[in-house]
């Protein structure tokens, strides 16, 4: 028998395609990703069978695109009142969160799959390392997943999608920026080994290692832990909602 989680996932996924939003979103993501890889990353000028120029900018491109997907996940239901319909249904809270999360993650996955023609084209240029390319796409999905759980949690507490987007952008940026040398040096100046501490939670270094094929278990575990923690925050926020605190 189909579960409530699957029913919700299907409904949420379909909702992206009931109007042109889903298609526009995916098209814009692919367009800007390829454009930036070619124009700024000089994908063609390098004349290498590598997707590094494409993956290099993904943390920033996804930072702009994923919150746009996540901002509506709860805030739209908050605004229309359908949140009460959802909360009155016989579905467990974790199923509610996972149903919404996987539906949006599926959109991210489709957006990434839509970039596969670029991967195929690279193979025509020369002998590409397809294992590294596959790892790069998986890394992108992981980083998108982190942005998604952040924006999902924020959209739970507001009816306003713009506010949800901007705050998600800020939090996502903090996750990224904490790994930048300028930020680490600044935080080190404060003391308490803060720079090192923030560098540990940054996604940037791990992502950059993964897109050049240097996979480590610790990085993968870190990504999974952050995603899990983000989902747990969503669960706690939903509990607060049921308590009438948000």
């Amino acid at each position, binding site marked *: 028998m189909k579960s409530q989680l699957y*029913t919700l996932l299907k409904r949420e996924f379909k909702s992206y395609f009931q109007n042109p939003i889903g298609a526009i979103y995916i098209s814009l993501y692919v367009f800007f990703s390829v454009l930036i890889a070619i124009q700024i990353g000089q994908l063609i000028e390098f004349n290498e069978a590598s997707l590094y120029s494409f993956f290099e900018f993904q943390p920033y491109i996804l930072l702009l695109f994923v919150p746009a997907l996540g901002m509506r996940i709860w805030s739209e239901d908050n605004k229309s009142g359908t949140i009460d*319909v959802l909360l*009155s249904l016989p579905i467990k809270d974790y199923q509610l969160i996972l149903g919404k999360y996987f539906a949006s993650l599926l959109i991210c996955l489709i957006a990434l799959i839509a970039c596969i023609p670029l991967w195929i084209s690279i193979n025509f240029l020369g002998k590409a390392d397809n294992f590294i390319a596959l790892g790069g796409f998986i890394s992108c999905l992981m980083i998108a997943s982190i942005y998604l759980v952040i924006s999902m949690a924020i959209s739970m507490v507001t009816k306003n999608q713009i506010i949800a987007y901007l705050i998600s952008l800020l939090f996502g940026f903090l996750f990224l920026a904490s790994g930048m040398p300028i930020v680490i040096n600044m935080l080190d100046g404060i003391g308490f080994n803060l720079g090192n501490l923030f560098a540990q939670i940054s996604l940037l270094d791990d992502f950059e290692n993964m897109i050049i094929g240097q996979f480590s278990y610790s990085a993968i575990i870190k990504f999974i832990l952050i995603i899990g923690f983000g989902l747990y925050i969503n669960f706690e926020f939903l509990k607060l909602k*049921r308590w009438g605190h948000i």
Partner: protein
Amino acid sequence: MLELISVNISLLGRKIIDDLSFNAKDGDIIGLVGVNGAGKTTCIRTICGILEPQSGEIKIAGQNLKDNRTFAQKQIGLLLEGAPLWGDMNAKEYLEFLGNMHALFGNDLKKAIIKAVEITKIQNIFHQKIDTLSKGFKRRVAFAGAILHDPKILILDEPTDGLDPEQRAQALDILAKMGKDRIIIFSTHILGDIGDICNRIIVINNGKKIADETIDEFKKNTSGKLENAFFKLTGGGV
């Protein structure tokens, strides 16, 4: 079948429901009345498991709502105030979604949808996008969703608000028929609706239950008029 025991709810530091207790059995059609802000909607949202009380217990079919929320929610059909719906769906998709959520699939789902559609008379707009429907039809679609899984407890928040006289009469007629073998809790500020179909009235004021009587008892000391009895209790009137 439904039991509320000393339920207390505070929202953002303000007490909304204060030590509310009552129970209901099959055949009870309860009018839940009170002035705006009295706590009717919060009470309904709590019985349906949308909100959790800070203290007290809610038992549905002998099960504590807190311990087994999804079981309790399977017994409840809910029509919320303003009938919020997903506008991007059509009535068919909406009913299928709710049916699946209540573990109805295949032929069972089909039969349930046919029955709900017949009762609410939404055949003509069945494939129409909800966003394009009139307020009255949106409410019918929401009502079809509430009765789809043949719930033992039907909870309706302001169900006749915004309906024209004909639609109102139809809605009350449906409720009167359905109320014979289940509990119906009917929140409204239109006292006429209560007198027409309810056999029991609960008055809430500032989150407290101030009356829980049969309609006849309620009218007895106030020249047979519901309004007089209501104003006497809540201290309102003109």
